[in-house]
């Protein structure tokens, strides 16, 4: 029997994601997929799914979900004070749902994105091989993947696994200030030493105009005047581009695939997960490796 998820509240931005739409970037399709890949993979492991299975990415303000039918769930990533029928539940652990229950989220204690995995086959439509949200002309190409109030999901549960957990020392820590490692970008040498020195010795607060496409930083490169117009070239998640006005933008999973701004650096792929757990107002310290 299928498990049903009925969304009484959608939360701020609740989407279905997997590992993304890889291979179509030559056509201008964003990579997409989970922002914090390792937390997402951990959640899927805890319910016995494979690591590319779709799951819910919950952002800052969580949804309220009525779960019908037996299933196994797990929550990882940001701590949004999850509860079941009002009882606080543990994160980073398999949770058995036996009967109808209400999963809710409360105060955000740390991080920015939580991942909710449900063990089984999700009855949803992929587009170009991925369940991650994709839009065209304002219409969803993956109609199930953007959660709204009253959205419903149907999942054919796996045969239950014995309860798994990830010990606290192996769980990531999300601070509101992070050191993020960076390698030199293609246009690194076009910046002055003064610009670079300043960039790597100051905190960069994350602007409220940040989303899954990119993190805009509330900082400005000093001594920066783009001398030549660049010819558009490929950009990838983690590329730090500097707009003509000097504002740094770190490209994230839903970024476009080409751009014409100066690329100062690239965030280490391993650090992208921690970066994805920063929210507007938090700060980044970049270090050049």
């Amino acid at each position, binding site marked *: 029997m299928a498990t049903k998820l009925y969304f009484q509240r959608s939360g701020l931005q609740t989407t279905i994601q997997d590992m993304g739409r890889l291979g179509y970037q030559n056509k201008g399709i964003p990579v997409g997929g989970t922002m914090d890949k390792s937390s997402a993979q951990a959640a899927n492991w805890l319910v016995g799914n494979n690591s590319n299975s779709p799951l819910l990415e919950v952002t800052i303000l969580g949804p309220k979900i009525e779960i019908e039918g037996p299933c196994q769930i797990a929550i990882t990533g940001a701590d949004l004070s999850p509860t079941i029928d009002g009882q606080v539940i543990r994160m980073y652990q398999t949770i058995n749902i036996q009967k109808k229950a209400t999963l809710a989220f409360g105060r955000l204690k740390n991080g920015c994105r939580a991942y909710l995995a449900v063990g089984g086959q999700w009855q949803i439509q992929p587009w170009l091989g991925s369940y991650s949200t994709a839009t065209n*002309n304002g219409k969803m190409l993956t109609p199930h993947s953007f959660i709204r109030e009253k959205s419903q999901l149907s999942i054919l549960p796996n045969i239950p696994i014995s309860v798994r957990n990830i010990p606290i020392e192996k769980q990531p820590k999300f601070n509101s200030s992070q050191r993020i490692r960076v390698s030199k970008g293609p246009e690194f040498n076009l910046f002055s030493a003064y610009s670079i020195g300043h960039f790597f010795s100051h905190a960069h607060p994350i602007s409220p105009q940040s989303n899954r496409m990119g993190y805009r930083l509330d900082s400005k490169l000093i001594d920066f005047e783009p001398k030549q117009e660049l010819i558009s070239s*490929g950009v*990838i998640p983690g590329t730090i581009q500097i707009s003509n006005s000097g504002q740094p933008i770190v490209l994230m999973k839903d970024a476009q695939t080409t751009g014409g701004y100066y690329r100062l650096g690239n965030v280490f792929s*391993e650090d992208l997960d921690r970066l994805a757990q920063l929210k507007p107002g938090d700060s980044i310290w970049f270090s050049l490796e």
Partner: protein
Amino acid sequence: MNIRSYGDTALLLNFEQKISPNINAKVVAWNQAIQKANISSVVYTIPAYCSLTVVFDPVQTNHQQLAEHIKSLELPKNSAITAKTHQVPVCYEQPYALDIQEVAQQTGLDHKEIIQIHTQDTFQVYMLGFLPGFAYMGKLPKELYCRRKLTPRPKVPACAVGLAGQQTGIYPSVAPGGWQIIGQTPIPIFNPNKEQPFLFSVGDRVQFQAISQQEFEQLSIVYQNGY
């Protein structure tokens, strides 16, 4: 060609930094060579005007190893490059030719001359980017060069054909944009419902053909369900 590392999971192949069909042809050739070699560590590529981004799986390879592998590949002969030529009908009449007056002012050409020049050459698809399936093409004959609009249009219609500098392009979907719109094609160049949603690939050739408003409407019905 210069190969450099681009973050810890990609290589950037840079060619002479110029917008030119010949340089772009090299990008296409290297991209095809990499695709054809079916290198298991290559996750995806982004061919652009004069660069090629190659993203790899760091568990399987590293910058140096992949760069050596790429350098050892044999480039496809020009004749073997699998580029299609597309005949793309465009209605250059109102209500589709939103900026034809501005283009006429900037170029000193009249409406007829603009159409004649835009349909005389075959253009090359340099890059798909900005939006899923947005095709950047060139090179335009010099007479047709014009600047982008000072204030971008908040909603350019899907399938609008535009000009910007030495390039021409087609909007795959409704989007904000600053290109000078001179017409519209009835062919959906991006159709998400198809298994192959994209009409164009990088390196393809495009020849525009002028059609009347009546022909546009007839073709729109034909193409309603995809190309």
